[in-house]
């Protein structure tokens, strides 16, 4: 009796986990907002060397607001993930190394000297501290 109840509850939990997992995947695969994707590919925004997005040159207020919003979200993620592993700046920097490496040709990124560069097919200029 007890055993049956236990196994059924385990099955229930398993089902719940499956549903949650599916929901998690759905969230994880949420793609970039079309406006953000367009701003990236047109070079209005670029990846900074510190793990945040930057506005390249002078851009409309809507682009600036979008960058601010995304950077706030990034900061929240960095803060959460860095806990117990390093500082927020270090986590953001490690992410920047990856993000700059992953930029697509045509997108903007910030070189170690702070200048904006357009990604080509060649490897991007990255901070020597990047792994």
């Amino acid at each position, binding site marked *: 009796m007890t055993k049956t109840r236990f196994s059924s509850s385990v099955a229930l939990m398993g089902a719940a986990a499956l549903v949650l997992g599916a929901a998690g995947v759905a969230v994880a695969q949420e793609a970039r907002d079309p406006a953000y994707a367009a701003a990236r590919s047109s070079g209005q925004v670029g990846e900074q060397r510190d793990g945040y997005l930057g506005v390249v040159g002078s851009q409309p207020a809507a682009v600036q607001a979008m960058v601010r919003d995304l950077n706030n979200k990034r900061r929240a993620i960095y803060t959460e*993930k860095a806990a117990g592993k390093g500082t927020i700046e270090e986590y953001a920097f490690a992410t920047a190394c990856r993000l700059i490496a992953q930029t697509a040709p045509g997108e903007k990124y910030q070189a170690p000297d702070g200048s904006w560069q357009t990604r080509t097919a060649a490897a991007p200029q990255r901070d020597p501290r*990047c792994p």
Partner: protein
Amino acid sequence: MIGPQLTGSDPAATNLAMPKIASSFAQFAAVRSGRRAVCAATMVAGLVPMLSGCIQVTAPDKPIVIELNVNIRQEVIYQLSADAEKTIKDNEGVF
């Protein structure tokens, strides 16, 4: 003779007994002359702080602060790199 020499080499004029001893030493030393006498005399008088043989050390008035953790630590960056990769994948909309 030994007494004044020993006390005379102590920091000048900070305790109450010192001026008497030091001045008597200065008088004594002045008779004998020599550089130590000049040095002791100036220390007692407190007029010209520096003469040959007197060394003045000034302590900084602000506390010494050693700032650690200024730079991004490279070994930490290496450790965080894989984690960062996963974070990017998990939050595609933001990155």
